[in-house]
């Protein structure tokens, strides 16, 4: 616990929930993002729709604990149960507003590696791969990233781009043929980073309570710049915490550090 009545993980969930706007269609994935979707639905975004790569769409989050998106509670009462192509095809059709992904490595332009540490020709560690992350990063209108803020994960340049962010910065994403999109928020256990300026380089946008700028800089592997006016991440409101506690009935996320 942070001493403020909420855990770091709960703050991350609530910060992620604020990135979902009402009426939006969002790839929500598992764990923190699915909780964020639930909080958003119960607070400011009652008409948001959650998508799952396996071929599911939901209005309400599942009533019971999920280990994976295909678990029976996620199937029951779904808004749509269909194929992967149909749900991910919504991305390519321009019907998806945002998507959440995580990653092993992220760089200053928001490119994410979940495939090969060291690159594919000089691999040091074989990671599981894209899953649907590359598709979401390439084709959702906004990409939302959730990662722990470790120096070896926040690197100057990823060794393999599984999921494209702003590539080399500037208009290189557009030049590659990706029309729009790209990461708009990177939510970590310390802070929120956002792209800033013409280069779309990730900057420090806000710091979570109890952490310092120096700490964030020390745990970022590039020369992290600060957006003018960067402040503390707004504290969870009573309504946001109440919504989260309604979903997280067993206190799974409350009891995280």
């Amino acid at each position: 616990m942070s001493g403020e009545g909420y855990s770091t993980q709960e703050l991350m969930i609530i910060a992620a929930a604020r990135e979902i706007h009402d009426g939006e269609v969002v790839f929500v994935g598992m764990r923190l993002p699915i909780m964020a979707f639930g909080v958003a639905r119960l607070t400011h975004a009652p008409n948001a729709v959650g998508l799952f790569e396996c071929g599911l769409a939901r209005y309400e989050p599942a009533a019971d604990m999920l280990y994976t998106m295909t678990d029976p509670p996620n199937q029951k009462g779904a808004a749509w149960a269909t194929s992967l192509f149909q749900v991910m095809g919504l991305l390519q059709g321009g019907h998806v507003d945002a998507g959440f992904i995580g990653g092993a490595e992220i760089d200053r332009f928001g490119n994410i590696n979940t495939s090969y540490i060291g690159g594919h020709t000089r691999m040091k560690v074989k990671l599981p791969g894209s899953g649907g992350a590359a598709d979401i990063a390439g084709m959702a209108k906004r990409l939302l990233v959730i990662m722990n803020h470790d120096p070896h994960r926040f690197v100057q340049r990823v060794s393999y781009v599984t999921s494209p962010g702003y590539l080399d910065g500037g208009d290189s994403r557009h030049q590659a043929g990706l029309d729009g999109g790209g990461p708009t928020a990177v939510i970590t256990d310390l802070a929120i980073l956002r792209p800033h300026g013409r280069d779309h380089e990730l900057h420090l946008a806000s710091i979570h309570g109890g952490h310092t700028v120096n700490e964030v800089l020390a745990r970022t592997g590039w020369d992290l710049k600060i957006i003018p006016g960067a402040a503390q991440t707004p504290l969870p409101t009573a309504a946001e915490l109440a919504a989260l506690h309604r979903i997280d009935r067993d206190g799974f996320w409350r009891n995280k550090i």
Partner: protein
Amino acid sequence: MMDKLSNLPSAIADIVRNEDSVVLGACLEGNIPFCATYELIRQGKRNLTMIAPISDASTDMLIGAGCVAGLTGAWVGNVSGGLGHNYRRAAEKSMPHPIRIHDYSNFTLAAALMAGAYGIPYMPVRSILGSDILASNPEFKQTTNPFTAEHEPVVLVPPLKADVAILPVQRSDRAGNCHLWGSSGVTTEAAIGAARIIVVADEIVEAEIIASDPSRVPFPGWQVSAVCQVPAGCHPSPMAGRWRRDNAFLNDYHLRSREVEGFQAWLKEWVFDVPDHAAYRAKLGERLDALQIKGWAPSAPVNYASE
């Protein structure tokens, strides 16, 4: 109609050949026919190319057991634990032997299977532009859209067809006409493109039950080669309306497969020392019973009357 009912060991022996490309489960984390994973390992199949968007730890088990020469997939690991230890050993250290990795994303793999299923020469997609998947998998080609005046890059995905698709369903008749409900992943595309299909049915039912609701049939029954009845054949993965996920089982596998010796001991305990799936279910015992869905939330009937 033709009676295609078989038992799983015979179907695997007769239908899956060394060197085959195999879709083993097509619904991502759910409906993975682990019963067939274990049987492929028991029968010592070799040089398989696994085609899977995810398939959880099933692919990792087959790699560790030495059955796999190639991998065409979007994700290999352990959904509960993260990294796949056998996948890492094979990719990083060529243990037990090297594997060829063909990187895909979920959407491009679905597009490839769709092209394979319907004879589409290639699928143009916008996904993976800007991704190094284009660099590490030379099977993709990048070109420009010939229909737009503006320079518009597109990726061409080649068609993909499996030799064998092994696909769990909730219920099937003896001819391979089946029902699958819940999300279906790439089931339809994988099945239609496959040269041979093995249906792994949780339950065998009369043909009339399947015919009562043709909208729930995921692929053409006449393309099916064999039907095997294996209750809980997807354990430890879940199946809508039938089985919950055995997360503890997959966590245990993740811990024990961290070292080769631990993986070999796991394999002995859960695969080689277990002669068939009935013995596997008996070994799971009450644990399997606890995973069985006992609730009843039926869909409303639909009317197909014609007059």
